[in-house]
């Protein structure tokens, strides 16, 4: 099977600091990959390189048939990056809903502005996706008037409305109060069941164990271990994975 996302020798420098030290990763269509690792291990940076929120320094990103080398310049590169963004949907830790638009407008914004879809059609798509995350009942509300968990569900609907091929989640529950985490994870589980390709950077080990097809462990900019959840979580091969899991077990992040 051809992978839908393929990272080859991906490197990223922030100034002199090497944050990603040559990552190789393949993600198959319909696969759910959870990326775990300590903060500062480069997992978010890797995720953000996939849709070029961070421009990678070296290596190649292949996504849904597009091959984009790092460090490209000019119109052609920009066009490729734009296309990569169209086939990826991203969900952020801090939701980043647009506060000056209603929930419905938030979800319609991408289809209408980026795809140039007519409003009636976009509204149909937006309402369908809001229903998917259980937020249709708040469609006329503004983001400041809903809870964090609800915001994140709307943010997921906003990404889904663009009908992406891959969903990227950057610690989607880390900014939430503990009692609100469940509703967001439920929505994500639903997406996984529907066969959505997902790359999830997370600290939720329970979610990773239950939903992931594969767990990827990162440490200091390197991919140190990957495999089925039960293998990685029960029989970690790498001592950094062991240390990470111990930290979770004792309740620290």
């Amino acid at each position: 099977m051809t992978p839908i996302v393929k990272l080859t020798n991906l490197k990223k420098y922030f100034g002199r600091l090497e944050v990603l030290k040559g990552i190789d990763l393949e993600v198959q269509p319909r696969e759910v990959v959870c990326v775990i690792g300590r903060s500062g291990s480069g997992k978010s940076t890797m995720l953000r390189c996939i849709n070029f929120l961070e421009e990678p320094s070296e290596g190649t990103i292949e996504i849904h048939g597009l091959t984009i080398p790092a460090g490209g310049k000019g119109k052609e590169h920009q066009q490729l990056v734009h296309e990569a963004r169209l086939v990826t949907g991203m969900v952020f830790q801090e939701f980043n809903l647009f506060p000056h638009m209603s929930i419905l407008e938030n979800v319609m914004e991408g289809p209408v502005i980026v795809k140039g879809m007519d409003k009636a059609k976009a509204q149909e798509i937006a309402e369908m996706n809001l229903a998917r995350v259980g937020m249709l009942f708040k469609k006329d509300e503004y983001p400041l008037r809903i809870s964090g968990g609800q915001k994140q569900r709307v943010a997921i609907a906003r990404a889904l409305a663009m009908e992406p091929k891959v969903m990227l989640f950057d610690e989607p529950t880390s900014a939430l109060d503990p009692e609100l985490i469940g509703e967001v994870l439920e929505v994500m589980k639903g997406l996984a069941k529907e066969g959505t390709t997902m790359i999830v950077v997370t600290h939720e080990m329970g979610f990773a164990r239950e939903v992931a097809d594969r767990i990827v462990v990162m440490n200091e900019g390197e991919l140190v271990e990957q495999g089925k959840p039960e293998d990685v979580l029960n029989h970690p091969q790498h001592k950094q994975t062991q240390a990470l899991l111990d930290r979770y077990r004792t309740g620290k992040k």
Partner: protein
Amino acid sequence: MNLLPKKENAPTSHVEMLYQAYQRKERVFRMNVGISWGILLLFLVFLFSGQEWTLAGIPFKTIKVDSEFIRANMVFIAGGIGETIKISILSIILAILLALFAALGRLSTFPPFYALSTFYVSLIRGTPLYLQIFFFFLALPQLGIILPGLWAGVLALGLNYGAYMSETFRAGISSVGKGQREAAIALGMTNGQLMRRIVLPQALRFAIPPMGNDFIAMTKDSALVAATGFVHELMWRAVKVGRAQFHNLEALIMAAIFYWVMTLLLTAVQSRIEARLSKGDR
């Protein structure tokens, strides 16, 4: 007639009583502020009442104004209000446009655009408005550009306020978080779409209260345009009749009252707008 006490007027709970006490306290405060304003206003009127008296052998007097002159010239001076408002509105529109470009230039990574913006802001903020107004009357004709007085004044005021307001706009644009931009970029928006749809609407909401302040300040600074002698707004009319009939003080007092009333009205409008904006935030 029902002689029983009405039930809905009776305090229903401890919380209700506390809330009513709080409201009473607010009312009393506002009433006292109102009374104090009244006293200050009376004192101001008294200051211009032309009274003379002696207290314990020391003579006192207040400022004397010629009420006959005031009555006779009221309409002429008030006739400048329209012109003053016209200058202010046209200038603020020009200022907003310039401020927007200057703010975008200031945030641009394209060197000439950045330079143009910082050069403009530096030059305008580094020289007095009074001087700038004369400049447009004296320098432009040398280039063969002869603007009607009003437009030269609008150009000077607009350029001046645009430079100051660009800082407000820049702060507004910077106040829109990085996360907002990233969310828009991740959706596939271009830079133009990101600015127009996400950044500017939020930046404007942030910038509206200080823009209101600038507009109020501008209605008063429009008086400087009178110095050129070509625009017959409030200040020009006051100076003209005052000088002609040797009643400068009366004429200026009248102009002052008109300016004050105008700013009071504008301030009221502004707080309405602000209240509405903050409502949208919740």
